[in-house]
């Protein structure tokens, strides 16, 4: 070979070194020991295990297939010992004949469940024992049979560092996930989702607004098909995903087949949902009494307004009962898996259907998946992962609109009928303050259909035993169609005056991905050290297109597609695109089973940035030290294993519009004349937001793995925030995209797993507990000229240096004057007036701590699981109080809190007097509407029973299990609204946080299910 002839020196050196063992081998008759080391629980091979001949220097490490081979074993009886961090060591006595090869396999028992897990990481996988970054995993078992559409919602309380806010309870709603806090002001704060190695589209492609009710691309990933979820939390773990990783990465791995005869499993459940809790509102008598008192207090005549007690309170309407219902939820999943040695398959089909607990709302999803693995030869193999789904989501008119269904059910008066005697619905002309919620739900509707194809084809070629090339192409096609019909039948709406309003919107999101990478494991199976590396490149193309038309004026309520409109009032057809080109590498080092190091480096080029800053660089390093493997600590090894970790890395965020760096013109038509006008101010220096994060952590297990834990502390600093920075309006623009400001997140995470009872027999009593808690302290540390600004519903959220993102900024309520009954507010500047200048930082909308506690038990054929989930430290702005606790200025029904109102001089209370003209201060937006947002929720209780095998066999089943389950059983909270897990600004909001403006309530669900396999 040319290489050899050129590098003759290394060739000679190699020859010399190679001569050494052969000389020794010649001196003594010896044999070979070989075998495979595998995990007793998962039956997966264990790579990197040390196998040595006790009392000699003969040793080897297992390769990726768990195989080892020790040569030069002295003949005779020897002890062979296999060990691996996280497993109990095992010793076997064997007789080695001279010149012969002995087979000896080892099956190691993990000392702690958490340590034996295979952890999927970016562009590969590793074992928990080798992880040096901060990574959480959630298995399919932990989220099974949760009657929620999206896997994002299922993560609530399951993984430390992952904070989940449901925002609203409507079926299929978009969820807010914050991994280690919010780190961005204007760009996205949602994590990156990677399904089977492919970063997928995750945005809300919906064009029609329903305030807090977002659509998310995550619900189209069927949770039934998910094998495991890994959350990459620290920068070092996530940096391999570079410019999109600063909010953390959620890696989803779908199920795949294993060799064996066909195995068909099914899981079906059906259940009923009811509203978790109703609001305490006034009844007709209380309402009229209150409103009459309000009128009298302000010298108005109640009779003039139809508010006379005993006269105007004869009707009793419960609007909440009128819009809530018991709603069914059902799920069916059937899948088949199996395969021969070269071909493996997993094929699955599912249906999930959930009616909303508010009339008019519903969600359903049909999905299918086919995952195939094929070994073409010993070197070449292929895998395909194809998922198809179709979702239909019936949303209800936005919470913040005048025609919201939940809104108007809370707002309308209890003393007016819902229906007239003839069955028609009452309306504002009958005195209702707002349009009739039941009529809205009955005649208006808004279906959104999402169809999605998520496909990836992967080829792997084993260049050598230690080198594999993986090539992958993937497509993610998402097609979303929304319709909305606002019927003219609903009197008192804009649609009634416009003779009906219809909207139709098509959106498509397409992503194509092509990538290739080498996985190198050159020093995996020899000596005391190991080294592996990944190096590759990736390119991604994104294309979005949308069409929209809105029409008014319809001849017949049944001719309600937008094309039948007399007038098109709005339309759109546009597209956008952006591309990414990336190079990445990662190297893992291990030495003597106790020193671990990982370095990664990614560079991303993005079309979103100008020539000056097109490429971003994202390096990371992490170190691990398995303290318990140190010889000097061996005496303590019986206590358990301890690993210390430390990491540091840089990640980015490029979540901005596509050509924000460029000066551009857009269309500006005038009547039928086509025109253009400037629409973007140039900033050629625009670049990535970047996050630098340090993490220190400890993994430990003791008592043979009965107790294990993972703890982390992190400090995350985001700088060069992508913001829309103000510019003097005299330029013709008001803002441009720039990098200004810093945000910091610090926190602590702890996950504890204990096996409280471990029975030697599988049918004995087993009890495992899992507890996790996380804290996060979020702080804005710099802004453009450090100027604070406000946002969110009614501008109650603020962004200020030194405060958490979205900190509530409100006038402080000090109490009610016992003499006058008027509310008293803190006049900070002592100017005698309560103005916006008297606002103070009044609370944090972000939870400061959250977590979950799950217990799983099994005994005989029974299994029981219960989960609690908690969150706290935050405040909620109950924006419903602006109308429902306003002293009687608006005709809205009131919360029962007003029953303890001030009524006569000397009354000491915190509820201002009723005031028709709104002069008691009850209308002032202040800390009076701020409530404690802490809660603990009984998230789930499931009781399962495995049918006796004799019984299931008669049914032709290999096994079968039935279960009953309750979800969202009770929420313990001081919050007075429907649900403290709320954000009416929706999942894409960064600053508007923690406000409840008539958000759709959560459902309590009971299900009965059966699962089994043939």
């Amino acid at each position: 070979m040319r290489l050899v002839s050129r590098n003759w020196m290394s060739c000679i050196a190699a020859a010399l070194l190679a001569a050494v063992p052969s000389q020794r081998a010649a001196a003594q008759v010896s044999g070979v020991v070989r075998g495979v080391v595998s995990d007793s629980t998962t039956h997966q091979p264990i790579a990197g295990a040390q196998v040595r001949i006790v009392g000699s220097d003969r040793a080897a490490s297992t390769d990726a297939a768990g195989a080892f081979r020790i040569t030069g074993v002295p003949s005779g009886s020897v002890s062979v010992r296999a060990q691996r961090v996280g497993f109990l060591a095992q010793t076997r006595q064997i007789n080695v004949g001279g010149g012969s090869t002995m087979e000896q396999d080892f099956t190691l028992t993990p000392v702690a469940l958490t340590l034996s897990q295979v952890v999927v990481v970016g562009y590969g996988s590793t074992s928990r024992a080798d992880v040096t970054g901060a990574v959480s995993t959630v298995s399919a078992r932990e989220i099974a049979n949760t009657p929620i559409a999206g896997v994002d919602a299922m993560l609530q309380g399951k993984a430390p560092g992952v904070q989940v806010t449901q925002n609203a309870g409507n079926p299929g709603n978009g969820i807010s996930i914050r991994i280690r806090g919010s780190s961005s002001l204007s760009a996205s704060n949602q994590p990156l989702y990677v399904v089977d190695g492919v970063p997928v589209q995750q945005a809300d492609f919906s064009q029609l607004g329903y305030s807090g009710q977002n659509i998310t691309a995550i619900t189209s990933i069927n949770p039934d098909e998910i094998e495991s979820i890994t959350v990459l939390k620290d920068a070092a773990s996530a940096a391999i995903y570079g410019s999109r990783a600063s909010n953390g990465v959620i890696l989803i791995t779908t199920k795949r087949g294993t060799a064996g005869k066909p195995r068909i499993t099914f899981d079906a459940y059906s259940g009923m949902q009811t509203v978790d809790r109703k609001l305490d509102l006034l009844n007709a008598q209380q309402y009229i009494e209150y409103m009459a008192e309000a009128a009298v207090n302000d010298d108005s005549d109640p009779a003039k307004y139809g508010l006379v007690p005993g006269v105007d309170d004869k009707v009793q309407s419960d609007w909440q009962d009128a819009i809530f219902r018991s709603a069914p939820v059902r799920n069916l999943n059937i899948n088949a898996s199996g395969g021969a040695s070269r071909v493996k398959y997993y094929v699955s089909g599912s249906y999930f259907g959930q009616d909303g607990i508010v009339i008019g709302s519903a969600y359903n999803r049909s999905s299918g998946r086919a995952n195939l693995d094929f070994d073409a030869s010993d070197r070449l193999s292929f895998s395909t992962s194809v998922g198809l789904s179709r979702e239909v989501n019936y949303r209800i008119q936005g919470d913040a609109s005048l025609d919201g269904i939940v809104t108007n059910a809370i707002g309308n008066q209890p003393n007016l009928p819902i229906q007239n005697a003839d069955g028609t619905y009452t309306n504002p002309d009958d005195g209702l303050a707002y349009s009739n919620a039941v009529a809205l739900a009955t005649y208006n509707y808004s279906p959104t259909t999402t169809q999605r194809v998520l496909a990836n084809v992967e080829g792997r070629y084993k260049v050598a035993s230690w080198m594999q090339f993986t090539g992958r192409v993937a497509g993610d096609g998402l097609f979303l169609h929304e319709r909305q019909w606002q019927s003219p039948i609903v009197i008192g709406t804009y649609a009634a005056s416009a003779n009906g309003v219809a909207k139709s919107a098509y959106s498509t999101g397409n992503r194509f991905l092509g990538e290739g990478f080498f996985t190198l494991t050159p020093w995996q199976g020899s000596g005391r050290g190991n080294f592996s590396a990944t190096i590759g490149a990736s390119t991604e193309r994104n294309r979005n297109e949308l069409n929209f038309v809105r029409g008014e004026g319809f001849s017949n309520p049944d001719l309600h597609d937008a094309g039948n409109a007399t007038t098109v009032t709005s339309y759109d057809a546009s597209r956008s695109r952006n591309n990414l080109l990336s190079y990445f590498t990662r190297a893992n080092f291990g030495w003597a089973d106790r020193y671990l190091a990982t370095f990664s480096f990614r560079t991303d080029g993005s079309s979103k940035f100008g020539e000056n800053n097109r490429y971003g660089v994202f390096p990371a390093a992490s170190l691990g030290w398995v303290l318990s493997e140190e010889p000097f600590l061996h005496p303590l090894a019986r206590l358990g294993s301890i690993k210390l970790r430390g990491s540091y890395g840089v990640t980015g965020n490029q979540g901005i519009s596509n050509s924000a760096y460029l000066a551009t013109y857009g269309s500006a038509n005038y009547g039928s004349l086509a025109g253009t006008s400037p629409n973007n101010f140039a900033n050629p220096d625009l670049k990535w937001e970047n996050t630098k994060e340090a993490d220190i952590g400890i993994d430990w297990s003791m008592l043979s793995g009965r107790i294990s834990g993972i703890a982390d502390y992190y400090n995350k600093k985001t700088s060069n925030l992508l913001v829309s920075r103000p510019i003097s309006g005299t330029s013709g623009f008001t803002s441009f995209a720039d990098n200004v400001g810093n945000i910091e997140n610090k926190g602590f995470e702890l996950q504890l797993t204990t096996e409280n009872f471990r029975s030697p027999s599988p049918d004995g009593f087993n009890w495992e507990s899992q507890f996790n808690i996380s804290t996060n302290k979020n702080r804005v540390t710099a802004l453009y000229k450090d100027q604070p600004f406000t946002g969110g519903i009614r501008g109650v959220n603020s962004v200020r240096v030194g405060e958490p993102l979205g900190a509530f900024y409100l006038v402080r309520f000090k109490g009610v004057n016992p003499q006058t009954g008027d509310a008293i507010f803190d006049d900070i500047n002592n100017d005698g007036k309560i103005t916006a200048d008297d606002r103070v930082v009044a609370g944090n909308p972000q939870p400061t701590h959250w977590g979950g506690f799950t217990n799983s038990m099994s005994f005989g054929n029974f299994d029981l699981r219960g989960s609690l989930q908690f969150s706290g430290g935050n405040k909620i702005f109950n924006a419903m109080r602006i109308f429902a606790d306003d002293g009687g200025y608006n005709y809205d029904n009131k919360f029962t809190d007003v029953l303890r109102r001030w009524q006569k001089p000397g009354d000491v209370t915190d509820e201002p007097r009723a005031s028709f003209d709104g002069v008691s201060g009850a209308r002032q937006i202040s800390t009076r509407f701020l409530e404690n947002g802490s809660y603990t929720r009984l998230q789930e209780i499931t009781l399962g029973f495995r049918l006796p095998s004799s019984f299931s066999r008669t049914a032709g089943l290999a096994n079968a299990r039935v279960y009953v389950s309750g979800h969202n059983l009770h929420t313990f909270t001081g919050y007075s609204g429907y649900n403290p897990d709320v954000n009416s600004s929706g999942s894409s909001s960064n600053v508007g946080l923690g406000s409840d403006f008539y958000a759709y309530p959560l459902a309590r669900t009971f299900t009965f299910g059966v699962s089994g396999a043939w």
Partner: protein
Amino acid sequence: MTATHITKKLNTVMKFRPILLLVPFGLAACSGVLDIAPTNSIPAATAISDVFGARTALVGAYAALQSSGYYGESYVNYTEVLSDNARASGTLTNFADADANKLRADNSEVASMWNRTYDAINRVNQIIQKVPAISGIADTERNEILGEAYFLRALHYHNLVKLWGGVPIRLEPASTITDAASATRATSGAVYAQILADLGQAETLITNKTQTRQASLNGAYALEARVRLYQKDYAGAEAAAAKVEAAGYALAPNFSDLFNATGSNTKEDIFRVLFTPVQYNLVGYYYLTRSLGGRYEAAPTTNLISAFDPASGGSISKYKPVDTRGLVSIALNGSRPYSPKYNTSIGDEDVHVIRFAEVILIRAEALAYLNRLPEAVAEYNRLRVRAGLTAETTAGRTQADVLAAIARERRLELAFEGDRWPDLVRTGQAISVMGLTANQTLLPVPLTEIDTAPGITQNPGY
């Protein structure tokens, strides 16, 4: 690990060298993926480089007038709430603040008016900067485009100076952030000088005399008359108004014809901003009550109800105006008075920027100040007659009396069209009639301006 292993491994690498080479090749082919042209927008550098670019840029300059911060709402509805014509009747705090004439420097409606007007100026400045250098365009078309651009710039600066006093004068587009931050305020006199200079250019360059949804030569004269009236150059105002009169405009026979929905053209139109169901205004939407599909943010004051029908005493239930403009301007829905002048919530009526009736009023006022009272009275009587009222006589009337009558006619004729507030400020009645302080007669400069361009000073009192 032995050296043989290393050698072997390197050998296998070399054996598969062709595969490795594919990787960089594959990516080299990808390097173009990052250069993608913007979609849905075009690079500014090439936007105005030929005759088509010049034409479309001019169209875009007119589109700026449709903004809700401009004639699409604020200049029409919001300024009425500042005046004694309308009160805040909806939920927007900006409107409540305007009603109380207690504006804050962070008022978002005021900021929107400022920003949208300067956006309109920037569009015009781009044309004035780039169109002279374009080749392949006929001189008459080039002149027409530039002339209309100068007209628009004069209109924009006049709108600014009416509301804020002296404002920053920007005659070229800002190209860098530093440039944008360097703006400082000019004196009101300097702004007026610039307006007249631009009008001079417009009158020289525009040849089209009749178009009404774009600037015409007569439109430039009408605007000149208005500007000179504001400057108290009564002879100049009268002369400019006389040129418009000579051009053959006439009052629409019925007052209501002026505010009919879409497409209504009258001989009274001089310059109206075009609106369609898609490029809609919020004028009617903000005036109409909820049951008529509106938001009802601005409602007629009792003061204006009395002005139309003194016998009503300001009570809408007793409102029976003789003046035919009365029921076009104020109507009753349920128990609520509202303005039906722009009477659809769809917002596709073309909003008047200047119409012939205003030119008559300008001329009347100028003549009155020039002490040509009989002519002045004859002018405004034309509007009274159309409104079904009796003509007034000159006999025995003082100049002050005639001026007061003109002010009254002006208020009734142009109610809810955005004229009342600048009129009150111009004539000093904001102080003498509404009882405001001098500080309250100028809008606050938006807070963001003070922050982003430190050279811009705030108006007193904010």
